[in-house]
């Protein structure tokens, strides 16, 4: 490796900006530009199969890491995290009601939904923006993605259990508890006070 080659190598390494052959020749105070060009070609060849490449862009040269190693240099550290309760609820609402706007999600949940929750679901790749609802304010509407079905082992959204099934599996138990509670109170009232009941229509919502 000759002196010029070493000097060019070191100069480009230490430079903060890419340098043209002209700038290099000036910087190194002497060599003919042809020599510098020749040296740059030699060096580039020398680095061709290494972890670092010497590349020319817009007639200026600089070192950069080999493109095939980019994945190594921008490592992704994967961190497995369980979806929060709030996010799971929002996801479920979107899945059952899609496409659905944020306001609708909130009215179903009965709780305000932070924007971060939707971001998380979109980051996870399970929810996407599905356009805008053509009503005043044109709110964004959300829907699930194929990745969502994939991750949750669903062939289609129709595989989501319906309300009746949810009740059958006890997943709506709190409602049934409330009902029983109500009935017991009723019966008590009747037995002890014997008031005249007004018949009420019962509807199975």
């Amino acid at each position, binding site marked *: 490796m000759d002196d010029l080659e070493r000097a060019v190598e*070191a100069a480009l*390494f*230490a*430079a*903060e*900006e890419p340098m043209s052959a002209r700038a290099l020749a000036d910087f190194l105070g002497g060599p003919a530009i042809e020599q510098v060009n020749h040296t740059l070609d030699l060096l580039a060849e020398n680095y061709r199969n290494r972890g670092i490449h010497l590349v020319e862009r817009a007639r200026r040269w600089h*070192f*950069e*890491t080999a493109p095939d190693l980019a994945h190594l*240099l*921008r*490592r*992704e*550290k*994967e*961190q*497995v*995290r*369980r*979806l929060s*309760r709030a*996010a*799971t*609820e929002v*996801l*479920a*609402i979107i*899945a*059952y009601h899609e496409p659905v706007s944020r306001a609708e999600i909130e009215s*179903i*949940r*009965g709780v305000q939904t932070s924007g971060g929750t939707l971001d*998380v679901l979109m*980051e*996870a790749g*399970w929810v996407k923006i599905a356009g805008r609802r053509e009503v005043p304010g044109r709110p964004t509407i959300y829907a699930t993605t194929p990745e969502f079905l994939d991750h*949750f*082992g*669903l062939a289609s959204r129709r595989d*989501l*259990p319906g*309300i009746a099934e*949810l009740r059958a599996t006890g*997943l*709506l*138990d*709190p*409602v049934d508890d*409330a*009902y029983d509670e*109500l*009935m017991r109170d*009723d019966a008590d009232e009747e037995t002890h006070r014997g008031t*005249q*009941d007004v*018949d*009420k229509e*019962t*509807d199975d*919502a």
Partner: protein
Amino acid sequence: MIEDRLLFADTLVEPDEEWNGVAAEGAADPNTLYLELDGWEGPLDLLLDLARRQKVDLREISILSLVEQYLDYIEQVEALKLELAADYLVMAAWLTFLKSAMLLPKEEQDDPSPEELALKLQLRLQRLGAMRDAAARVMGGNRIGRDVFLRGSPEGLEIERKTNWRCDQFALIEAYGRVKARTAPAIHMVRERPVMTLESALERVSNMLGVTLQWMEIREFLPAHAEPRLRKSALASSFVAALELARLGKVELQQDDTFGSLQLRRRTAHG
């Protein structure tokens, strides 16, 4: 120790001057007067420099001649009416004492002996000299930014933290159940109970009144063996039916006193 205190306790606060070279180089001619007082930080410095100008190993120097040089130096500087820091004079006084002690017969000396003091001074100068050299050598190394250069614009190593979110079908459906359970509009369910509707009461009362012209007490219209709750419903319906039939002019009602027994009779057509 006394000598230590004398020598080194009351030292100067150093000037923070720029300095880049090696330790003060001795001038070729030992007779040249040094006036670079700024270059020295304290008596030890000056002594070390004087010792170096003897161009001998610090272990070989004669403390006596060093002391003489130092005192000469102080005298000369004084003659030039230069302001001299007290430390230099304290040192000069101490060295004068040391010089006289070394010249006097040994048996008249107090402990510690002048030899010990001289040796310790010599050891001290050696150590300072060694550090001075070391400092120069360290500074002479290949310093980053002066002799060697780092990559001008490193790309940097990025670590993107990516979260791999986990959730499963059960959690999803359970969450939906939870939402529904929490927010479903309250549905008041009332058990079906045995009732007599107004329609059936109307029919029943009309029919029963159709077969007689006698006054009948309202209770007689109620189903005979009905359970209490049905009875209660039948009473209410029959009462409303009676009112309705009276309004239509099909029935006469009679009640003698408040909460008294309610009598019904078919009204015969007369006009």
